[in-house]
């Protein structure tokens, strides 16, 4: 049993302490916007914010996440308005299949908090999510647009 604080709500989940946070979020909390892609922190589809930092939730255990502020893609919008990254994503029609995009958006939102005006090099270094459809061109354009919003 653990108390997780997800998107501002504290939720009691009945899981072993070593359960990956990804699966607690998806199966015990029921928020399925956070995706499983590899389970070994390679692809980034499961990226969430833990105390504001982008983390791959398949590589974080529930016990490590206790007491921290966890934000998932479902909690990114605030006050009924989509986050500027989500808005830029819509404006640039970024997703193709879309499966990796929750993680991509979460990684970008964290980047912009740290570096509000990232250069292309900053993007190259910070955004290492896999997208098999190959949306990178639109991702880059949307990051710059969000940064100037």
């Amino acid at each position, binding site marked *: 049993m653990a108390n997780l604080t997800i998107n501002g709500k504290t939720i009691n989940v009945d899981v072993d302490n070593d359960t990956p946070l990804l*699966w607690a979020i998806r199966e015990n909390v029921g928020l399925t916007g956070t995706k499983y892609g590899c389970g070994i922190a390679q692809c980034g589809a499961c990226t969430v914010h833990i105390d504001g930092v982008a983390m791959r939730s398949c590589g974080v255990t529930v016990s490590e996440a206790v007491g921290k502020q966890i934000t998932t893609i479902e909690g990114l919008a605030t006050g009924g308005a989509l986050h500027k990254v989500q808005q830029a994503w819509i404006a640039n029609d970024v997703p193709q299949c879309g499966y990796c995009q929750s993680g991509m958006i979460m990684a970008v939102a964290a980047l912009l908090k740290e570096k509000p005006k990232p250069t292309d090099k900053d*993007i190259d270094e910070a955004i290492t999510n896999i997208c098999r459809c190959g949306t990178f061109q639109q991702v880059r354009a949307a990051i710059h647009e969000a940064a100037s919003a």
Partner: protein
Amino acid sequence: MNKHIMPKLDRRAFVIGTAAAGAGLAIGLDIPFGGPQVVRAADGSPEVNVWVVIRPDNTTVIRVARSEMGQGTLTGLAQLVAEELECDWSKVVTEYPTPGQSVARKRAWGDFSTGGSRGIRTSQEYVRKGGATARIMLVQAAANEWKVPVTECTAANSVITHTPSGKTTTYGAVVEAAAKLTPPADADVKLKDPKDWKIAGKGVKRLDTVDKTTGAMIYGADVKLPGMLNAAIKDAPVFGSKLKSYDEAKIAGMKGVKKVVKVGDSAVAVVADTWWHAKTALDAMTIVWDEGENAKVSSESIAKWLAEGLDNNQPAFIGNQNGDAKAAIGSAVKKVEAVYNYPYQNHATMEPLNATAVYTADKCEVWCGTQNGEAAFAAAMEASGLPAEKCEVHKLILGGGFGRRGMTDYVRQAVLIAKEMPGTPVKLLWSREEDMAQGKFHPVTQCKLTGAFDADNNLTALHVRLSGQSILYTVRPAALVNGMDPAAFQGLSPSGDAAIGYAVPNLLVEHSMRNPHVPPGFWRGVNVNQNAIYMECFMDELAHSVGQDPVEFRRKLMSKHPKHLAVLNAVAEKIGWGKPAPQGVYRGIAQVMGYGSYVAGAAEISVTEGSKIKVHRIVASTDPGYVVNPAQVERQIAGSFVYGLSALFYGGCTVKDGKMEQTNFDTYNSMRIAEMPKVECVMVPSGGFWGGVGEPTIGVAAPAVLNAYFAATGKRIRSVPLRDQNITFA
């Protein structure tokens, strides 16, 4: 499994309900004998025809039978219907009909299969007619109501206008009457000239974007049903081998575990409350496989066998031939020969394979992402043993397909597991490791190419000898022609969808078919991938061997192939071929035809330390005949480079002890944003034909870069992937 199914049904009224979240659809079907009868969608809104439902508020529901896996077909097909329907695009929503409904209605929505870049090109005509037919009926209904000649009425943006009087009404207001009309004869349904398109042909925004940015989009892996359990599975890692035993007792007390299920004769699944519990228990269970002879197979043994097939004395199928290439090569002044190879590749869709099934003696329902709803339906029928009217498949948006989700192995497994727990919905999700182990792999091939020149350095003969695996042999044996796999010659065929772009006086293209035990599948671009590398890199070799410019050399051979030449010229011009490149930057170029479309690509790269490649710029051109959504075509072209270059640099699946060695993205990597330059697209649609766009461009991605690598280093690479040669991105 891929055969079309057309079971006999009782002609009776019945209702198919969909309980799932997501993109399901419920229709009250009332199919009587005799005249037109209104068929209603779940919310009571009438169908004008199977493609178009209009709600009273003028929302237009457009039905799309093909699957959306990121390629934009959902939006493109809706654009084509809307174009002819003259409806308000801002009020268009889409809906998937289900395969079960289609069977019950005499296959009203036609083919559901979404592969081979066929989504739009093979259904564009009948969906446009569906939109046009609906428009004619709606306008007729308004004319009838006004008691005016229909010729005095026009439609635009879901509004019908009686021109002489200026009276107007809306689609929503007349749809009930329109739905009762007899549809016009097919001959009376005229389609617009594409030059008059207002919605089609434009880069309108996709219809499925918002939910993909908020986490709300439900993929197969996200399906939730009341009382649902979760399953993890391991199939025999040595292809073709069997399950011998498993130690069920070892995991009996583990948290959440409900049941261990043998699936067929080669797989075992653990069913638990959560997938994490199921996977944890499965990993803890000792499983013994009866591996058999296939465990002796390795990539080395396969390569040796394929290399033997390059010998001209071995039997081979001839796919394209003119003149006498062997004789011309034998008497040539100059001869150039090279051997290439291309490895197995895994689709590695971002969303691992999954399907959710619930089975009772009276009903089998499946929820899954599939590229072929009808094939998934057939798999559900076969695995459940239930007739068509007791089966249903609810399609969800796919987290990638690339050909893998055209197969139905995962659907069959899910149904077999659910069958062991009647009444309980079970979601089967493959781990990434299972996904890598149990692929339907891009086939392995080698190719020996021989070119011959006369004294004036004219290419007089070309012999292309392919050796390797056929996809059709395993996947669709009925499509073989006297044992030959015609698809093995994609891009090298004499004519048709994937025709060679060069005229050589003496040409021989042949295939020594050798089918290892690894299950093959259609992998984005299919055989265009390796055939374009073989042909386009070798064209580069031939040009350099006689000191000619690679573009000029090609042009001389392409005068009889003006469409191939046009895209090559478009790319050459855009990239600045013949003009100096930036300092330290080198160019490569390639062209191919596939899936009915003509494509070319060029790359600008630099190479440091001989092994670190930076791709600075890519230019790509395509002539698909017609472009339905240029913004999505651009994305397909750019995405083809990401998929093709990922395979070139990082891909390649290798066999050891009969099984695949790569297990996850750490051993089967994929390109990241830092490695991918901007792709500049030059679209040159020439009209008069409909080609696909999802796949052809992947063929030029690798050879453009490989030819640029030669330009930069003088070193010819004839083996994929580059990681085997310690060449990587800078």
